[in-house]
C-alpha cells in the first residue's frame, strides 16, 4: 500500500505499526502524549494506545534513557524521544556508559533494544541547542548503532528495523526534512538498515551524504549536470556501521569523493570516511577525499546559519576543487 506522506507522518505510521505488532513496544519522552511531540511525530498515538504505552515523561533526559534501559532489561522495547539534538546531553552519560555497553558487559546475555529518536540538524531558524548534528559523538561509541534517514520511505522502514534491532539504535531525524513528502510503500521489501544506497548514478565524482544533506546533494548533482558533469550521489543512511563497500564501489568508478554533512568537519564522520576510502581506494583516487560541513565553532544564531550550513554553492565549489586535481 503506497501512499505519499511527509517524513514526520511516515515515522508516526511506522511507530503505530510497531506498537500494533508488539505489545512490548513503548514510546516515551517529553510531550509525546497529548501534544504528539513538538513536531507531532507521535500525534494521536496516545489516544489510540493509551498513556501506559505512550508515556509523557518528566523533564529529565537522563531519566528517560536510564528508565528505558531498565524497561529493556525487563523485556520492553522502548522508543524514546529526545526533544531536540542539544538536549540529548543530560542523557549522554546513560547512553554512553550504560546503554552502549550493557550487551558487552553481560557477555551477550542482555539485549538493549532501545531506540533513541533525536530530531537533529539546522536550517529551521531555531534558537541555540535546536540545530546541532552530534552524530559523530555517538558513532564514536562502540555498542551504539547510528542511523539517519533522508526521506519518508526510509524513515518509515528504518524505524521498523531499528525497533526490531536488539542493539541500541540512535535514530537521527533530519528535522528540516520532516515536511518533505515521498511515496511510502508499507508492503515493500526494504533495504537492510545499514546499507548505503546509490540514489543517483554518475561517472565523474561521488557525493556521499546522509540525512538532511542527501536532498542537497541531489540538487547539486542536478545543477552539475547542467554544466555537463555527471555526479553519483550516495545516501549512506547509516553512520555506524558505515557501508564502505558501496562507497568503495562508487569511488572505484568515479575516482573522486566529496563527503557532505552538517556536523563540524573536524573529527566528524567525513574524516572517518576519507581515511577509510583512502586506504581502500588509494590507487583509484584522482583527488584527495574532500569534506564539506560545519565549522569548528558553536552552531551560530539563526541569522548566520545559511553561512554555516553546507549549501549548493559550497558543495559545487568542493566538486570543482576535486575535479581540478
Amino acid at each position, binding site marked *: 500500500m503506497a501512499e505519499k506522506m511527509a517524513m514526520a507522518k511516515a515515522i508516526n505510521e511506522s511507530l503505530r505499526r510497531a506498537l500494533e505488532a508488539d505489545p512490548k513496544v513503548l514510546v516515551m519522552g517529553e510531550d509525546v502524549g497529548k501534544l504528539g511531540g513538538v513536531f507531532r511525530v507521535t500525534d494521536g498515538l496516545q489516544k489510540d494506545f493509551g498513556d501506559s504505552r505512550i508515556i509523557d515523561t518528566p*523533564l529529565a533526559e537522563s531519566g528517560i534513557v536510564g528508565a528505558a534501559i531498565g524497561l529493556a532489561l525487563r523485556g520492553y522495547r522502548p522508543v524514546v524521544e529526545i526533544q531536540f539534538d542539544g538536549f540529548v546531553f543530560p542523557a549522554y552519560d546513560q547512553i554512553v556508559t550504560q546503554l552502549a555497553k550493557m550487551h558487552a558487559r553481560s557477555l551477550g546475555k542482555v539485549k538493549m533494544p532501545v531506540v533513541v529518536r533525536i530530531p537533529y540538524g539546522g536550517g529551521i531558524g531555531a534558537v541555540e541547542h535546536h540545530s546541532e548534528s552530534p552524530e559523530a559523538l555517538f558513532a564514536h561509541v562502540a555498542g551504539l548503532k547510528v542511523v539517519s534517514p533522508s526521506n519518508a520511505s526510509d524513515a518509515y522502514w528504518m524505524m521498523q528495523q531499528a525497533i526490531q534491532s536488539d542493539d541500541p539504535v540512535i535514530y537521527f531525524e533530519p528535522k528540516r526534512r520532516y515536511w518533505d513528502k515521498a511515496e511510502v510503500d508499507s508492503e515493500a521489501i526494504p533495504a537492510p538498515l545499514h546499507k548505503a544506497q546509490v540514489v543517483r548514478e554518475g561517472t565523474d565524482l561521488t557525493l556521499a551524504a546522509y540525512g538532511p544533506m542527501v536532498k542537497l546533494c541531489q540538487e547539486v548533482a542536478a545543477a552539475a549536470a547542467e554544466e555537463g558533469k555527471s555526479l553519483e550521489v550516495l545516501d549512506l543512511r547509516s553512520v555506524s556501521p558505515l557501508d564502505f563497500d558501496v562507497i568503495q564501489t562508487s569511488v572505484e568508478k568515479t575516482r573522486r569523493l566529496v563527503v557532505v554533512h552538517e556536523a563540524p568537519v573536524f573529527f566528524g564522520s567525513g574524516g572517518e570516511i576519507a581515511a577509510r576510502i583512502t586506504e581502500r581506494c588509494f590507487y583509484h583516487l584522482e583527488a584527495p577525499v574532500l569534506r564539506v560541513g560545519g565549522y569548528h565553532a558553536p552552531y551560530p*544564531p539563526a541569522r548566520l546559519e545559511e553561512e554555516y550550513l553546507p549549501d549548493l554553492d559550497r558543495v559545487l565549489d568542493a566538486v570543482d576543487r576535486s575535479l581540478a586535481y
Partner: protein
Amino acid sequence: MTVDSSAARKRSAAGKAGTTGSKAGSAGTESGATGASAKRTTSTTRAPRAARAGAKKGAEPELVQLLTPEGKRVKNAEYDSYVAGITPEDLRGLYRDMVLTRRFDAEATALQRQGELGLWASLLGQEAAQIGSGRATRADDYVFPTYREHGVAWCRGVDPTNLLGMFRGVNNGGWDPNSNNFHLYTIVIGSQTLHATGYAMGVAKDGADSAVIAYFGDGASSQGDVAESFTFSAVYNAPVVFFCQNNQWAISEPTEKQTRVPLYQRAQGYGFPGVRVDGNDVLACLAVTRWALERARNGEGPTLVEAFTYRMGAHTTSDDPSRYRGDEERQAWEAKDPILRLRRHLEASNHADEGFFEELEAESEALGKRVREAVRAMPDPDHFAIFENVYADGHALVDEERAQFAAYQASFADAEGGH
C-alpha cells in the same frame, strides 16, 4: 494563615540541620575561612521560623499571600515585616514594572507574529513572580535566569531590547552578564541552577554578603541538575535562593507529570526550607524573596521558593496550548491576574490617581514603539561572527577555517565584479 504545627516543627528542624551542616561544610572545604565567611555561618537569624506554608491534608497547600485577587491587603505575621517600609510610591513602582514588562512581552509576541523574531517565550501571567522576586535582589546579588525571565531582567536594569537578539537569531546571548549581574538566558532546562550554586559557593568563599538567585520552572525541577544543585547548595551551605516559577505547565505536561508532592516541599529532603508563595501577588513575592535572600546573606544557606503562578499564553510562539488544555483553566487564572490585583489595591487605597495610569499607558506605548524600532533596526551579524570568541586564546583550526571562509566569500565578490 493557618500553619500546620507538626509540619512547622519538622521544617524548622530541617532548617537547623541545614545550618549545622553548613558549618561542617565550610570548615571542611575552606579551612582558611575568612572572618567574613565565619560571620556568615555564625550570625543569628532575623528570619522568621523556617516553617512556611502549611500542608493541609487532602487540600492544596496554602500560599503565602499578602494581596488577595480582589486587591485586599491581608496580614501575614511572618512576612509583613519584609514589606513593612513599603510606600505608595514603591507600590506604584511595582505596578509600573509589571505593566511595562507585560507591554514589552506583548510587543515581542507581536514582533514574532510579524516575522521579526524567530521565536518568543512569553511571561504573560508571571509578572508578579518576576517583578516581586527581581525587586527583592540587591545590585551585588547575582541572578541566573532561564529563557523567560524578562521581568527579572527589567528589574536588573538590562535593556529589554538586548533580550531580543537571541530570539531574533542574531546572537546567542546579547548582554554582558557581569554588567548587571544577570547571567545569560539558559535554554537547557535546569543547567543554570548548578551554575548559581557554584557562584554562591564562590560568594561564600569570598566572604561577601551578596546572594544568588536561580530561576527555573516546574518542569525543570525534574532534571538531575536541579537535584544536584540542591545537594551541593545544602552541603556547602551556599547562599542561593532557588526560585521555581510553577506556571503549572511544561509545554504540554502539567506539574503532576513532574512531581507528586508540592514542589516547595522537596527542599525539606535536602535540609533547607521551602515555601510556596502566591506567584500572582507581587507583594508576597517581594516579601518572601527578601526573606530568602536575607537567609542567604546571613549564612543560613539555600531556600526554595515556589511561586505558584500560571502561564497564560502558549509555552512559546511555536506552541499550541489548545491541544492540551482548555480555556476554563486560563479564565480561572485570569481572575487572579497579578496586574489587575495590584491595580485594585492601588485604587482602593487611593495610592494612585487616574493621571498615574494615563501616564503609564503613554509610557507603555513609548516602550512598545522603542522595542519595535530597535528590533527592526537590529542588524544581522557580520558573517565572520561565526568564528569570533570560539576560544579565548585562539585556535589554529579556527584561524584556518576563517581564512578559507574569507577566500570563499571573496570568490563571490570577484564573480559579481566580473559581470
